[in-house]
């Protein structure tokens, strides 16, 4: 298990940097170090991407290394497959979560399977960057949390940073990986800042390791991406209620770090999974199920889930009602059966209770 607190105190040479800046820097450093790294996508060139993550790359490395493609996501990913077959390391930008959908056939039928299909002869060292999730007031199709689709596709790695340092470290590692990585960038954390030294970037745990962002004893919040800050805030607020919550940042959904997660839950005996994606069929089901399989007799209560509702992503004016916020996390923690008097009998009416209380 790796325990890393979120950096709070500034270290020498460190200045506040945004996650967006760290991502740009990661791309730049990867391109400078490895001439086979190619960035491609819609508007990644002169414009620097709609979120400016590729800002300056076309200028520094030329348009052949950072290429504005025609507007066709299947074509972009399909071409990247061919480029990877020839030994390049393409880094593809999908402009928004929902605009990755046209590329799903390429993703599922080729990107995730080429290595397996060719018995290892044709690996695909591709990174697919997807600005994802809500909370930025985006109109329809600009706020989807699509990680469930990627998780259900063996052969892909699925990574989601929550901190500035991880944004840099995990993206570098994703690009260096010999397997395809879907790299989910939480849009609403693009402008989140932390002290960070671009010239001696902080070492972070590798892909596949979860990190305990806050230690605690009462219960574990299992989360990733944009919900990590929400959970940290909830953990702070929970102190007033007398709960000392542990927060585990998964960092990668695939590979999944059973060890770190289960060690935490066995210690605390209670857990809540928190994410923005819709609950039904979302990542939380998998996480809750596997934690329960592994920690059943350590659990004082069922693993609960706080997730987006089972609805298409709502319009900006209503998104705050949809997104799992601090209150909903605390409500869920409150329902982890702290009372001594909890009996199986109460469960018969559990459906009503759930309805009245905020369990997913």
């Amino acid at each position, binding site marked *: 298990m790796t325990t890393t607190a979120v950096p709070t105190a500034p270290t020498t040479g460190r200045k506040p940097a945004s996650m967006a800046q760290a991502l740009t820097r990661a791309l730049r450093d990867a391109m400078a170090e490895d001439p086979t790294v190619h960035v491609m996508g819609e508007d990644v*060139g*002169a414009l620097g991407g*709609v979120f400016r993550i590729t800002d300056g790359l076309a200028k520094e490395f030329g348009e052949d290394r950072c290429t504005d493609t025609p*507007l*066709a996501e299947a074509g972009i990913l399909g071409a990247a497959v061919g480029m990877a077959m020839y030994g390049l390391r393409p880094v593809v930008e999908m402009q928004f979560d929902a605009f990755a959908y046209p590329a799903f056939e390429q993703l599922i039928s080729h990107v995730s399977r080429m290595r397996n299909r060719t018995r290892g002869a044709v690996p695909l060292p591709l990174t697919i960057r997807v600005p994802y999730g809500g909370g930025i007031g985006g109109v329809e199709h*600009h706020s989807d949390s699509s990680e469930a689709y990627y998780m259900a596709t063996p052969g892909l790695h699925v990574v989601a940073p929550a901190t500035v340092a991880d944004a840099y470290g995990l993206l570098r590692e994703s690009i260096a990986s010999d397997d395809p990585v879907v790299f989910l960038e939480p849009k609403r954390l693009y402008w989140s800042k932390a002290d960070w030294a671009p010239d001696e970037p902080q070492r972070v745990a590798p892909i596949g390791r979860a990190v305990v962002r806050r230690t605690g004893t009462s219960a574990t919040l299992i989360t990733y991406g944009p919900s990590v800050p929400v959970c940290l805030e909830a953990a702070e607020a929970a102190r007033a209620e007398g709960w000392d919550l542990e927060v585990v940042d998964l960092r990668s959904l695939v590979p999944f770090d059973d060890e770190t997660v289960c060690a935490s839950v066995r210690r605390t005996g209670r857990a809540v999974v928190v994410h923005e994606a819709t609950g*039904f069929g979302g990542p939380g089901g998998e996480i809750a199920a596997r934690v329960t399989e592994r920690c059943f007799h350590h659990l004082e209560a069922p693993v609960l889930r706080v997730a987006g509702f089972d609805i298409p992503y709502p319009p900006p004016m209503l998104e705050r009602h949809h997104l799992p916020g601090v209150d909903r996390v605390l*409500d869920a923690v409150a329902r982890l059966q702290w009372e001594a008097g909890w009996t199986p009998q109460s469960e018969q009416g559990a459906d009503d209770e759930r309805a009245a209380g905020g369990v997913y």
Partner: protein
Amino acid sequence: MTVLEQPGAYRPTPPPAWQPRTDPAPLLPEAEPYRLLGTDAAAAADPDLLLKLYAELVRGRRYNTQATALTRQGRLAVYPSSTGQEACEIAAGLVLEDRDWLFPSYRDTLAAIARGVDPVSALTLLRGDWHTGYDPTQYRVAPLCTPLATQLPHAVGLAHAARLRGDDVVALAMVGDGGTSEGDFHEALNFAAVWQSPVVFLIQNNGFAISVPLAKQTAAPSLAHKGVGYGIPGRLVDGNDAVAMHQVLTEAVERARTGGGPTLIEAVTYRVEAHTNADDATRYRADSEVEAWRAHDPIELLEHELRSRGLLTDDVIRDAREAAEQMAARLRERMNEDAPLEPMDLFAHVYAEKTSQLREQAAQLRAELDAELDAEEER
């Protein structure tokens, strides 16, 4: 002499698939964009039409500037302006019959309005309110479509369904130059051609897909040249010439309505403003290019024609401006009203009937909202 006619050649009957089924020549577009304004042929245009187009263009331009202003005041989340493209938008909005359907792309608010959609409702999506502010079945205007080119197959399917039912309904589908690169564009055109569906495809080639110029989008002689590959006639039109746009669209709609099948129209125009208010166009294009196109303004082109015919009277100008200002004022006023959104509506239309899961979740939100209310009352 073809190879098969050569004397002494080994010459089995050419198998049936060899015969080209369509003559390609009539499917190829004109070599340069078709244009009426500024030519002698413009004289034949109906003065009432010119005046109608003029009033709509002026109103459309004002709508664009007003909506952009509203984004600066934070009353609109985002607005993709069609300034410079009003001739395409207005013509598309005007050529259809009531029973026809329009399938606009996300930039085509003006076309929807020209077809009758309430100017405020048309902005519902863009102000952060529900995704479609109007009832598509009331106006026969499909939702403004964000995922590019994805509404084109819908237009084909709807037109096909209408034809199967014996209705002489036409669908007009709009897409940008960037959108033509998507697979859905290809599949829609092919379905329309094979089914001979009554659809008109209108490409607004405004030179850019956000920051990506046409030259990085296609290497084709013109986008209208894509038609022949489906067996669809392609037309190339000056998209800033409202009269030519109106004529070419009308012909295509008529052709579709009378069983002639689909048409692909490329309107050559220019996106004079940035992609949206959130975009910075100076990053990817020179002012000089924009200025060149400003000199080819659709309203000025039409004004010149009206003036040369003596139709551009002070009254006409005043009436057009006043109508535009009234519309703008109404827009400002109504966009300043807060839209009261009902959170419980989140669950209302996911399915015809809520699943038990959605009922549970609705009850949860209801309880949260009640608790919030109680907390507020206590304060």
